[in-house]
């Protein structure tokens, strides 16, 4: 029977990433010892970029799955399909990564249903196997295979939490927004705006992060700064760019919006 495997793309160009405090060394060590990794941190602080960077550095293909609540075990492992009257086995991203020694990255893993997540358990401990029930097959993960999951502990919903039995299988790396100088570097590099504007954007982001917990769920992420910077580089006035890319993206509350705009105009 035919097996269709998904593409396992290699990352060819070096993604822009600056290690902050040795997270790349930890990741490499975990990779060397075949330990799965959990990335914790607020949204838009560079988790995905870090995984891309490590995949490039370790020269492994990278498969990314964005988790959502309708994600089923078949979506990860694979399913039978019929192509031209023939049955073929369509391999899922997780089993393909395990078989071929790729890095499999499950983004925002809390979004997936808990029963779906259980299928990763045997892959995430010393067994490193993936049972494929329908085919009666036990896939032993290749040497280069690595499981990486990410989640944002800032969610306050009690319905969205990682089960202990899941999270205790991982080496956890804690992420936060980069230090101001580095964050300005990133914004300059990603958007091409001048350093002065980038520094101001970062300062403004710091102000919104001070508001976390007293009105905002999260401050402006590095990703939002990059969005705003991109708009500014495209010729949009900074105030308009920040309103569209940052303020409105963070909150709908009218008072908070005015406060955020006032903060913005105080640094620009």
């Amino acid at each position, binding site marked *: *029977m035919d097996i269709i495997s998904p593409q396992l793309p290699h990352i060819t160009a070096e993604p822009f990433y600056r290690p902050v405090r040795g997270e790349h060394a930890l990741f490499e060590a975990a990779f060397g010892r075949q330990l799965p990794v959990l990335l914790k941190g607020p949204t838009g602080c560079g988790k995905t970029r870090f995984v891309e960077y490590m995949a490039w550095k370790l020269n492994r293909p990278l498969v990314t799955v964005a988790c959502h609540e*309708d994600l*089923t075990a*078949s979506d990860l492992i694979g*399913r*039978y*399909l*019929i192509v031209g009257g*023939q*049955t*073929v*086995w369509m391999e899922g991203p997780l089993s393909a990564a395990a078989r071929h020694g790729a890095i499999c990255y499950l983004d925002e893993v809390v979004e997936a249903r808990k029963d779906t997540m259980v299928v990763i358990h045997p892959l995430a401990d010393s067994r490193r196997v993936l049972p494929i029930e*329908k085919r009666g097959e036990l896939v032993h993960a290749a040497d280069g295979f690595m499981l990486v999951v990410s989640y944002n*502990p*800032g*969610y*306050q*919903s*009690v*319905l969205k939490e990682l089960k202990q039995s899941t999270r205790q299988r991982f080496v956890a790396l804690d992420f936060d927004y980069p*230090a*101001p*100088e580095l964050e300005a570097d990133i914004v300059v590099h990603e958007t091409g705006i001048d350093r002065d504007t980038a520094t101001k954007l970062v300062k403004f982001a*710091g*102000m*919104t992060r*001070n*508001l976390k*917990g*007293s*009105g905002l769920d999260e401050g402006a992420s590095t990703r939002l700064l990059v969005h705003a910077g991109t708009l500014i580089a495209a010729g949009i006035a900074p105030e308009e760019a920040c309103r569209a890319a940052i303020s409105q993206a963070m909150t709908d509350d009218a*008072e*908070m919006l*005015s*406060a*955020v705009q*006032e*903060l*913005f*105009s*105080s*640094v*620009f």
Partner: protein
Amino acid sequence: MAQRELTAAEIAPLLDDWLQVEFTDYALHDQVARIAALGTGDQAFVLDWIRRSAAVNVQLGHMFATQAPRILTEANHRSVEAWILHALDEIDRVGLKSALDVLRDHGRFVASGREHAGGAVYSEFAGVLRNFVHGLSGRVLRLEQDGCADGAYTDSETLFLPAVVADFDDARDNFVLAKLLVTMLWAQTRFGTFACDFASVCARYPDAARALDCFRALETLRLEAAIARELPGIGREARRARALSHSDALTPAWRAWRERLAVPGAGARESLACLDAAYAAALPPAPPFQCALRPDAVAAVQAARIAREKTLLRVKLSELLDDMPPRAERDDSSPRLELRSAAASPDDLPRHDLLVDGNPVPLPDHMAALLTSIQLDFSEIPPEYLQPAGPGDYDAYAAQSLDKGPDDVWSGTYHEDGAIFYPEWDFRRQHFRKNWCVMREIDIAPVHDDFRAQVLQRYPGLARQLRRSFEALRDQDRPERRQVDGNELDLDALVEAHGDAHAGHDMSERLFTRRHRTERDIAVLFMVDMSGSTLGWINDVQRETLLLLSEGLETLGDRYAIYGFSGMTRKKCELYRIKRFEENYDADVQGRISGIRARDYTRMGFAVRHATHLLGQVQARRRLLIVISDGKPDDYTDKYRGPYGIEDTRRALLQAMHAGVRPFCITVDKEARDYLPRLYGAARYTVVDDVARLPYKVADIYRRLTH
């Protein structure tokens, strides 16, 4: 009220009754005569408001009865109503004298009404500027309205602002001015005005008040420059405000001082260094955003804060060290603590890195905030602050007064029949005290008034919005895939099943999708702090919140219960039933919500334990315990205050979590960020800075928690 005009003879007994003439001996002939002379509509209007204001305060009612008939000849009902409502506000906010002043001088009220038209009113700008100032770096500052005459000032934790900012004609200019005031006050705390003892320096001059004025003018220049560097946008607005108010012309001497003070990193000492010369010169024109200095107010707050933060930092350090892995056995010297502080420029607040025996240790957010606050008071972190607290210090922090044992108070006098006993955690013993708390469930006597109608009238928009958004939660339809039957084919499942069949496997029967109304299956218990400190308007807002929330929950269909808690020593722990799970939301429940009153202290552990027990008896997939509180655990002449109470409550919350209950705390205590993380973990609490926003916030939080 009757439709025809009342005669003086009919009016007199009404006024006698409302104004309690029997006790007050008011002579009311004039008032009665003037009211009797009014037309029907005016008469009914005036009488109604006399009755209402007299119910709040008899003197106020009397003053209104005296003034209103005359005022009605020149003003319409709406403006008279605004006037009396303003007086009623004053009595709540400031006191009777101020309220009477408002009624005595109607002309001033009218004039300030005109001011309100173009002016920035505190209640309107406070919401935006509160968030604005939270966004700036440094200590978290509060905003409050203050009627004092000498302008805006701060005690280094709270910014006191005038009720109206109306220096300019244009509304936007006035708002900007309010923002400039807030920024100037923030700059006083941020750029070290209070890090030097300017008051005693000024006191050495022959004219101390003048010296203080000079220092204030110098500081205004210095802070303006610092703001312009740190917040260029605000700097531009400050220059514009100076130009608009014609306060931008300085003499050469003052220009020289301004330049000297504009050097990055210049502190308040620099201003003091200029003081001798400036004292001899004429004062420059004051810009409209110049703020007052109140060294007395600062001193009191600063002293209390310094003591509190020193202990707090040392306790936190000791907690941090306790959490670290134990060191080599033979090494019993205490760990070497070192703080490395680095600032990118002289204006920036330094970032602190803590080194333990030379190794960097990540600082939790609340400790970083604490260090920043200490930094602002001293311009550095004094080395003696880096001593972790020993066991003795912990006790000093705990027991501020302990003159009587808890047992002395109630021994022998309080029956334990019919009570439930709960254990309590003693963190010093590291053990439970068995059957320590004597707990009773007590029904609140319902107060049947028109509380519900009032609240719904007061928040018409919110009530509607709540109902709608809760309905949206309820009606969340989700397509369920792979069902045995349903109204549509699940194409993915069908293809997969067909593939399975071809490959020789059983074909799945789960080939349909069906729309499914999500079962929420949530039980939630709201536990309301009924301690004495909620007395007054916190209590009012709590009641309003509970009522609105209940209205919303009724549309949602989640099972919910409401209990209040309060205690006075371990022998009188009381849980007040407001609504049980199985009870319907009816007039009695509404009456009990209306009847919630502030009681004793905040003994919390027993309440959490009992709530856990109650939740355990409900069949539900998810159980939530939401605590609405205004302060940390506390009790009367009892060691419950401080770490004992916090540790006991924490233990009770851990037990709750083990029992499958998710606790969450909503608090209006501004210091809550110090201890709540310890109680609830980083993401399980929220601090509502503005009590008046509680109804909005609680509903919003509930939606988010269960969505």
